[in-house]
């Protein structure tokens, strides 16, 4: 009754009226402001630091440097704890450092009564560095003579490989094979709310942290580890979040604010990063260099894909090699019938630290794979859509990497639907007239597959609690974290579906509080609806049953004859009606019977479901102006059952928009000699404005995923994955020029067109 409908967002009105409160809107009076001193070199050592003048300033309460912090290395990646020590993230961070690993590294921190005083104090700190040569890329970092950025690491964070089938044999026997190298750039999340956290103490040993985080429960564990204090003495509260996109799936500020309030006797201390700090001193997307070989037969059969990835994690591991690992595993369910091999290495460098970002390595790899697929289709003279149709997964195929059957795969249907609704064949015809001259037109296509959640790499666990309130309405608490994507709303719909009451009678507690919220690792890996649905469905069933049992006692009718509909319990022929309000009052206040009616379920999920989709795009290129216009772009998704069509479309628009922006204009630039970051601000780091954004359209193919309570699969990250390669393929179609490096900015087009002698 609720699932499948476009329920309005629960927080829509709060957000359009400005009443919705974010982390910074909740600060206590007298909150002190902390500011980091960032290094202005990319690689070196602090040989001297003098804080005397800063400390002497009126309004400055404290200055801390490397010498003052606990010497406990910790990992910042927002992964659920792993019982296997070998599978845990690299513990390579301290709260502050004297060894500078990237331009912007944190070497000291000032706490003052206000931001202005703190900023002024930063200028008074005198630092002497001993500078080392910056190691910025694969060759420099992995040179055996290179300095180690982290002792004992050889500058390598991880490596692994897999083989599905016999790739060399498949390549040898294929009609043709081709190779390509693809390079992706440093991209940053640019969530509109910068990183922010503040903390205070409300007892001698109890720290409360308010934070804009995607992962409250994980955050608590990491703070506990970083400061070596018991987990139960830390309370992490997450109010409304102004976007995260993976950057807040990392514990960036929380250990520091907890440390500071502890040092300052429990007064509230806030760290709110500026846009500039957020752009280069939080996390970025890992730049990938991908070498890929593709072998096909002339009939269009994909025989083999061999992928070789070098991933650059920058100064600190953060999510480290998990990114390259996850990306590799997600190609397999798209082309499960080809021989596939993958090897990857992740290395440190003196660039900003890379972490999780929407797609978690997949956008980089999909860019390479779907580009080489396009080249292959062209080489054998086959339509790229037909070529994909011949090779993509179908329901019932086995994923050779896991040995498990793919329970639902709607990618063929997505392609077929896309072909029709986008007018692929017709546009292709029309474009014949635009293949020479200054104005060219082209069509591009790319596909993807993606997981839902992190299992089996990590535990997948979700909790839900429901309470029948005294007024007959239901409060739902979940550990799943609303960060703007709309998870609270779809959870309310799921609860409504199982309870039989309307969404309007359900209140989802959006604020997460580790002291009271059921355990759940948080918002990442497009896991929310898929992982949480089981817990919500079961909790709903349980509470429904308890309500009906109490109704049965009150009405003296057997439970089997009773149902809940709207705001009341009815018997079979609806001749008896008991409102939930009456029922609740009885349950709470009858002197001898009943109790508070609640239900709580925590569930582990030991499956992952693959979602699929594709991007179709039509571009126009003005060769002389090196200007690209997107005439039409359409994503078609198989995310299983769509719980809320409008919210789902919103996710697609946002993901495609971010994909276009990353494909065409975004690039965090580092000086190739010094590693100095040039453009950590929103004027010079170009995220798409409304002017740069074309109309976007989308469509869904609703398969039924049997491993999910409502047949649903992931959707948060997928819309972005296939955008860049689709555009790249369309430019190739229009101009014959292959853009094998991102971004495909006017400058890059200029260089490429000049090399191709088009201009």
């Amino acid at each position, binding site marked *: 009754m609720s699932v499948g409908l*476009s329920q*309005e*967002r629960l*927080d*829509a*009105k*709060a*957000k*359009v*009226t*400005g*009443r*919705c*409160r*974010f982390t*910074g*809107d909740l600060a206590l009076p007298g909150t002190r402001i902390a500011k980091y001193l960032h290094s202005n070199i990319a690689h070196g050592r602090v040989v001297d630091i003098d804080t005397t003048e800063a400390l002497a300033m009126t309004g400055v309460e404290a200055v801390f440097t490397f010498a003052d912090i606990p010497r406990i290395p910790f990992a910042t990646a927002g992964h659920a704890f792993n019982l296997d020590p070998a599978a845990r993230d690299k513990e390579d961070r301290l709260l502050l450092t004297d060894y500078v690993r990237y331009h912007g590294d944190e070497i000291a921190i000032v706490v003052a009564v206000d931001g*202005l005083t703190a900023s002024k104090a930063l200028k008074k700190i005198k630092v002497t560095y001993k500078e080392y040569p910056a190691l910025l890329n694969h060759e420099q970092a992995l040179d055996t003579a290179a300095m180690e950025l982290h002792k004992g690491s050889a500058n390598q964070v991880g490596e692994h490989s897999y083989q599905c089938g016999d790739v060399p044999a498949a390549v040898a026997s294929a009609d043709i094979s081709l190779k390509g190298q693809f390079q992706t750039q440093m991209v940053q*999340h*640019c*969530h*509109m*709310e*910068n990183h922010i956290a503040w903390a205070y103490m409300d007892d001698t040993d109890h720290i409360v942290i308010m934070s804009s985080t995607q992962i409250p429960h994980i955050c608590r564990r990491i703070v506990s580890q970083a400061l070596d204090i018991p987990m139960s003495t830390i309370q992490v509260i997450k109010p*409304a*979040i*102004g*976007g995260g*996109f993976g950057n807040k799936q990392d514990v960036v500020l929380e250990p520091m604010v907890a440390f500071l309030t502890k040092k300052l006797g429990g007064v509230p201390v806030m760290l709110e990063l*500026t*846009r500039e700090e957020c752009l280069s001193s939080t996390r970025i997307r890992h730049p990938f260099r991908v070498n890929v070989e593709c072998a096909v037969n002339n009939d269009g059969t994909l025989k083999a894909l061999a992928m070789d990835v070098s991933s650059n994690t920058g100064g600190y591991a953060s999510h480290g090699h998990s990114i390259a690992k996850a990306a590799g595993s997600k190609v397999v369910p798209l082309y499960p019938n080809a021989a596939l091999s993958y090897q990857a290495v992740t290395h440190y460098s003196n660039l900003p630290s890379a972490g999780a970002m929407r797609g978690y390595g997949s956008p980089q790899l999909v860019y390479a794979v779907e580009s080489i697929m396009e080249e292959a289709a062209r080489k054998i003279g086959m339509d790229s859509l037909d070529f994909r149709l011949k090779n993509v997964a179908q329901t019932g195929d086995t994923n050779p990497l896991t040995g498990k059957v793919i329970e639902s795969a709607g990618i063929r249907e997505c392609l077929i639907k896309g072909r029709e609704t986008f007018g692929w064949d017709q546009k292709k015809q029309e474009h014949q007239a635009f293949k020479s001259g200054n104005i060219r037109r082209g069509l591009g296509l790319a596909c993807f597959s993606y997981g839902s959640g992190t299992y089996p790499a990590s535990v997948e666990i979700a909790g839900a609690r429901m309470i029948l309130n005294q007024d007959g309405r239901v409060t739902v608490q979940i550990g799943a974290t609303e*960060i*703007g*994507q*709309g998870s609270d709303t779809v959870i309310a719909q799921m609860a409504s579906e199982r309870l039989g009451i309307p969404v309007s009678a359900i209140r989802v507690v959006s604020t997460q509080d580790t002291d009271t919220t059921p355990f759940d690792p948080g918002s990442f890996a497009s896991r929310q609806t898929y992982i949480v649905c089981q817990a919500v469905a079961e909790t709903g069933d349980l509470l429904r049953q308890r309500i009906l049992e109490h109704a049965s006692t009150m009405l003296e009718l057997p439970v089997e004859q009773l149902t809940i509909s709207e705001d009341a319990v009815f018997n079979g022929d609806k001749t008896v009606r008991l409102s939930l309000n009456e029922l609740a009052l009885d349950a709470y206040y009858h002197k001898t019977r009943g109790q508070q009616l609640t239900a709580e379920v925590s569930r582990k999920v030991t499956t992952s479901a693959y979602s699929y989709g594709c991007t179709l795009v039509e571009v126009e290129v003005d060769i002389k102006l090196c200007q690209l216009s997107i005439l039409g772009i359409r994503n078609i998704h198989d995310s299983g059952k769509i719980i809320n069509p*409008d*919210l789902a*479309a*919103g996710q697609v*628009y*946002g*993901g*495609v*928009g*971010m994909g*276009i922006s990353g494909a065409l204009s975004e690039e965090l630039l580092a000086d190739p000699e010094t590693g100095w970051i040039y453009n950590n*601000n*929103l*004027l010079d780091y170009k*995220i*798409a*404005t*409304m*002017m740069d*954004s074309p*109309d*976007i359209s989308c469509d869904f193919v609703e398969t039924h995923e049997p491993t999910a309570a409502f047949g649903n699969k992931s959707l948060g990250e997928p819309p972005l994955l296939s955008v860049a390669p689709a555009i790249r393929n369309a430019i190739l179609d229009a101009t014959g020029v292959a853009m094998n490096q991102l971004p495909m900015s006017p400058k890059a087009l200029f260089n490429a067109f000049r090399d191709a002698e088009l201009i």
Partner: protein
Amino acid sequence: MKQIIQCQLNGKPVELVVDVRQSLLEALRSHGLTGCKEGCGVGECGACTVLIDEVPVDSCITLAIRAEGRVIRTIEGESINGELSPVQQAYVDAGAVQCGFCTPGLVMKTTSYIEGLAQSAGGCCQSGSNGINRDDIRREHAGNLCRCTGYQTVVDAVEKSIQYYSGQK
């Protein structure tokens, strides 16, 4: 140095004690009006948009003392007695709200845009009839960044705002 300024804030005369170096954004936020947000603090993102004498400004790069004697409108004043303004309702109905951090700034920008349109059309503004298309809307809102929506539903919301606003008239 502190200074007392007088202005009209969401329809009511107020006195604010501000630091002469303070931005209007900071002054409004410390006055409890936390609806306006800081996304950059330097005039790049529009999250802090408020109206001064009906003109949308980035309050982060406007000195608070410049509000002296002016008429300020913020997101908090836009819904009256719990009823959403046509623009707010349009944003809700178009699904233009995701994380919502950009939303107050966008709503204020759209509000001044459609009120301006209505004024220039003599009290009525209608999409189509006065030739407003999606590109016009995009150009007008280019100073407001949103990272969640790809702007698709935001442009829809502005179109709807025009409809709702003229319907209300």
